[in-house]
């Protein structure tokens, strides 16, 4: 119950953080929390655990669509760049061959397609994840530094409609959490 002594307790609360010692405990807790109807929940793990994302209801990522779009834009852009420069603004007659020599344009088109898709994948991922994000309330909990080592955390936000400080704290303690802490905003 060390969380009650948190110096920032007078500030509006961001949520409650539960700490787990094992990934199994976190996965079980994620299922329970989801079944209980909490929606503003996030889990924090040192490495990707698919079961946790699944349990919290992250099924489809928007990223593949963004990457497809990036690839198509890159490909069309690359081809049009070549068509415009080689056929329209700077046509060069090489031995009477056609200026629209599309087989030669395939190689740069391939490269710009990959480039567009890869840029979309990286920046799309950062955009969807809201990164870079210099400040986040979870870092107010000192033990959260262990989230990048071997501890597993879960946060239920106070803006969740089902959130109730005491009831939620009791609920989290029942889920085999080793510690439940209040997270200052």
């Amino acid at each position, binding site marked *: 119950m060390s969380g009650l002594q948190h110096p920032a307790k007078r500030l509006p609360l961001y949520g409650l953080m539960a700490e787990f010692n094992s*990934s*199994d405990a976190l*996965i079980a807790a*994620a299922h329970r929390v989801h079944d209980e109807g909490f929606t503003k929940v*996030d*889990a*924090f*793990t*040192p*490495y*990707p*655990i*698919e*079961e*946790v*994302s699944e349990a*919290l209801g*992250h099924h*489809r*990522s928007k*990223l*593949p669509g963004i*990457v497809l779009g990036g*690839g198509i834009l890159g490909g069309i852009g690359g081809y049009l*760049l*070549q068509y415009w*420069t*080689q056929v329209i*603004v*700077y046509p*060069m007659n*090489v031995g009477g061959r056609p200026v629209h*020599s599309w087989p*030669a344009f395939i*190689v*740069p088109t*391939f*490269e*710009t397609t*990959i*480039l567009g898709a*890869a*840029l979309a*994948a*990286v920046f799309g*991922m950062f955009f*969807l*994840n809201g*990164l*870079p994000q*210099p*400040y*986040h309330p979870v*870092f107010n909990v000192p033990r*959260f*530094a262990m*989230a*990048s*080592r*071997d501890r597993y955390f879960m946060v239920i936000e106070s803006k969740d409609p089902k959130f109730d400080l005491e009831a939620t704290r009791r609920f989290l303690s029942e889920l085999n959490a080793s510690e439940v802490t209040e997270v200052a905003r």
Partner: protein
Amino acid sequence: MATLDQGGLPAPLPKPYKPPIVAPGHTTASVTDKISEVVLQRTPKWWFLGFAVSFSLLMVFLVSVTWLLVKGVGVYGINWPIGWGFDIINFVWWIGIGHAGTLISAILLLLRQEWRTSINRFAEAMTLFAVACAGMYPLLHLGRPWLFYWLLPYPNTMNLWPQFRSPLIWDVFAVSTYATVSALFWYVGLVPDLATLRDRSTNRVARIVYGFGAMGWRGSAAHWHNYETAYLLLAGLATPLVLSVHTVVSFDFAIGIIPGWHATIFPPYFVAGAIYAGFAMVLTLAIPLRHLFKLEDFITTRHLQNMGKVMLATGLIVVYGYMTELFFAWYSGNTYEMFMAWNRVFGPYRYHWYMLIACNAVVPQFLWFRRVRTSPLWLFAISMVVSVGMWLERFVIIVTSLHRDFLPASWGLYHGTIWDWGTFIGTMGLFLTLFFLFIRFLPTISIFEMRTIVPGSHGGEYTEVPR
């Protein structure tokens, strides 16, 4: 790694037992501590020595490039008919080395080769640094390197545009795309590890610097979900890309109607050679690295042996390429093709060719023996020999194809000058300097991916060790 499985693929069949890819007894905590310790501890003495030597070599590069800029490309040994000398030899050599990183991180990821996890980070770093070295050469070879941006299509007052039908422009696109995508792939892989270093370093400056790099990463399940998707998609994109880069490099030769260059075998033969040279360089770096940082628990004998096997396989493809070149020279019935092959084997550069065969075709055959494949010393020696052999291969392809062309009146000979060698040794200095900085300041092994493969973790869907 890559727990993403949206396509509903069937679960992989249980695999036969293999030795573990991480030494027994490790947990998510111990791999985190052991790998981040390398960065967070005091700098070891050998690092200063290694860095000093590398940095001195980098100064050789500085001197060579300065002299080049003062005097022009005349300081190099290039002449007519050998217009492509060390610059292109070294360009192809370095870019070939730069293939192993993306191959390991992308193709082996898609092929579910979990052992890649211990070596992908520094192999990717090696890729980036090798591409940086490679990129120097075409620019320095331009004669007026400060006008390199003329290679790029941009609106300009001269109303000129690049010639997109030229393989040299394809090369600009292939190499710059490869450098960009490799850098992004590497950085994306680093983000969770930078967060680990941010959380674990006690030094305030280090916390701020790693914190900037980590961009506020906090390991959120929602983030991991997008992250895994991005990582897998990047691997899928990098796979055709890495194969395309050396293909395009081979087009620089194959599109030209020069006997010895104008061959359809070139793309696959170049790609195999690139993987061969790349794995040789990964071994050259991995063997001292695991010893000095005491990372034998993570880069195990199994890793070394697997890399030895890849080298042997790609080496055999390369030897097949040599045989095909000779066969088709004879089979073509073309005087000039046949003369090129004869000249390669018996001409003034015959000793280069003999050395090439000894280094690339004969010595790697020792890798058939398990005793050799499991011995770090033997592997180190063989990978050095292969690196020399691959350099000789590019020398033979470029110089012997150019030096005696169709008209005996225009024949000539070529050798590198001291400035050619200075630039070459100098880029080795650049490469090693960057590598020493990398091993000092960034985790040499991907920490978060190692967490997924330790026994008992839930991350690895393809975990080979019993859970």
